[in-house]
């Protein structure tokens, strides 16, 4: 293992697998710091390309910087977080390239949600508890599509709910009247409202039961088939990413340590951290293997 490598580990066939794809979002040398004393580098020189229609999984444990990176891309960083370097370019489907980092004010507002939208972590509690679902969906339209009439907004809102598998008659419900899974679906509907080309999802199903999670995932896949948006799926659940995503970037301590197709990551992980992560998820139906009961010594002290 030479110290020469300054980028994520991968295999030769990775380049081939993305050869013909059109990029929709390119992040280059992004660094994000927390301006505390002493400053903390949360994201270190990360470069990433997201292709149209692709599902890119961003895997890692807490503190690795994946959420920070997602917020950085969307210009959602709050003090003391600060993007200190790097550029982020969005390749619109009409052919123009937009420098996301340079956007501000009205241009940023117009860009956000329209081109890239986000489903936040803990999204179930991100719905405003005191206004109805309808109002929140309408808010999206009022902000970004000022020309829409109320009738159009209503029609679109009902359509969106139907798309995500929620009964359109629940439009007037409040957040607390919906189950966890339904709230999540509403959040996805809101993120879909303006037909974005990229959706960033930060642990969208973590707090949900596995059966509900499967339903939401199914929904996301279906919507992607229909609308062909790209997805950045951030989670610590590696088996999940291995099942549904096209490519996976494994992050650790602010860096991407490995980047490859899911199949390759599963079959031939290159980085020892990736192997360690994989080993942390015992196989459900495979061999019992050398896991726990036989007393293997993976029992070290804390990290």
């Amino acid at each position, binding site marked *: 293992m030479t110290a020469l490598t300054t980028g994520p580990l991968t295999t030769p066939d990775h380049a081939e697998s993305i050869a013909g794809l059109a990029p929709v979002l390119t992040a280059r040398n992004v660094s994000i710091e927390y301006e505390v004393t002493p400053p903390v580098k949360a994201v270190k020189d990360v470069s990433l390309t997201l292709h149209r229609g692709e599902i890119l999984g961003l895997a890692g*444990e*807490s503190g690795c910087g994946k959420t920070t990176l997602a917020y950085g891309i969307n210009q959602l960083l709050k003090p003391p977080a600060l993007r200190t370097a790097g550029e982020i370019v969005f390749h619109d489907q009409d052919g123009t390239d937009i420098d996301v980092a340079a956007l501000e004010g009205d241009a940023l507002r117009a860009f956000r949600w329209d081109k890239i939208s986000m489903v936040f972590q803990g999204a179930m509690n991100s719905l405003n508890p005191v206004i109805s679902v309808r109002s929140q969906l309408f808010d999206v339209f009022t902000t970004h599509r000022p020309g829409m009439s109320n009738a159009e907004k209503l029609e679109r809102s009902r359509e969106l709910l139907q798309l995500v*598998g929620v009964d359109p008659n629940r439009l007037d419900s409040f957040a607390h009247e919906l*189950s966890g*899974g*339904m709230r999540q*679906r509403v959040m996805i509907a809101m993120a879909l409202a303006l037909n974005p080309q990229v959706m960033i999802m930060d642990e969208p199903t973590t707090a949900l*039961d*596995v*059966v*509900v*999670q*499967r*339903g*939401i*995932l*199914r929904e996301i*896949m*279906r919507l992607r*088939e*229909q609308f062909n948006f790209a997805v950045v799926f951030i989670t*610590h*659940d*590696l*088996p*999940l990413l*291995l*099942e*549904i995503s096209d490519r996976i970037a494994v992050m650790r301590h602010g860096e991407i340590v490995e980047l490859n197709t*899911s*199949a390759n990551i*599963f079959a031939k992980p290159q980085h020892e951290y990736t192997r*360690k*992560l994989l*080993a*942390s*998820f*015992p*196989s*459900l*139906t495979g061999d*019992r*293997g050398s*896991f*726990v*009961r036989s*007393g*293997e*010594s*993976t*029992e*070290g*002290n*804390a*990290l």
Partner: protein
Amino acid sequence: MSTLEVKNLIKDFRVRGSGAGKKFRAVDDVSFTLEPGRTIALVGESGSGKSTVARMISKLETPTSGEILIDGRKSATRGRALAEYRRNVQMVFQDPFASLNPFHTIAHHIERPLRLHGKAKGRTEIDAQVHQLLERVNLTPAPIVAARRPHELSGGQRQRVAIARALAPGARFLVADEPVSMLDVSIRLSVLNLLARLQREESLGVLYITHDLATARHFSDEIIVMFRGKIVERGPSDEVILNPQHDYTKLLLGAAPNPENHGRLREEVRRELASASATSGDAGAARDRFGTADL
């Protein structure tokens, strides 16, 4: 024989605000027996009642009906008999951040049970035992760990402290309520391995509560599947996982992420879209039956 037997446990909760005392049955006729050296996994989703069972066993809640027998005798709810019960039955909580008091040192947390159950007296004896327990859970050097406060430890370390605290009274039965679900992925195995080792060394009877079927299978001898307060399936771990009988178990197993199924979901979705029938198929039917169709 040393056993902790749970017989026909039922727990009802009063539902507020819906008229005169509507009841919600969280646990409905649950029975099983913990034996030394064996682990039973209680598996279920949220709302299945598994945590309520755990709280009843650790006497944080009283059952509406049913019994908890220790070594064949009814367990007490008061006085010295309760103290005796607590000496034998301890619990590890899910949340490593909340289960330790941020104001006190680690030593305090482990000292209290030692004192309460007369395991040690006097400064030197107590210190020695505290250090010993910390070493057993691989927190070294023990004197330094003992002097720290919870926020100075990582999540995995805090959970180890919680395990040490549970062992302090000399418990024979351990209820582990989702002990690793809030830990970082890469530390989960090490904590589970620790529990397994301690179980072997102390011949503990462990009740492992989780929603994660994979670790349930690898870590326990027997799996009990709960759904809405009832037991729907039980059996040896491998049996239940590899050869599930009940539809709900099958649903759970099918829903768990499995890297071997890469691409399958996409294919299914494509086929569904092509045939333009959104919720047909067994999966949909199964979901509907278990009331999860409105997810």
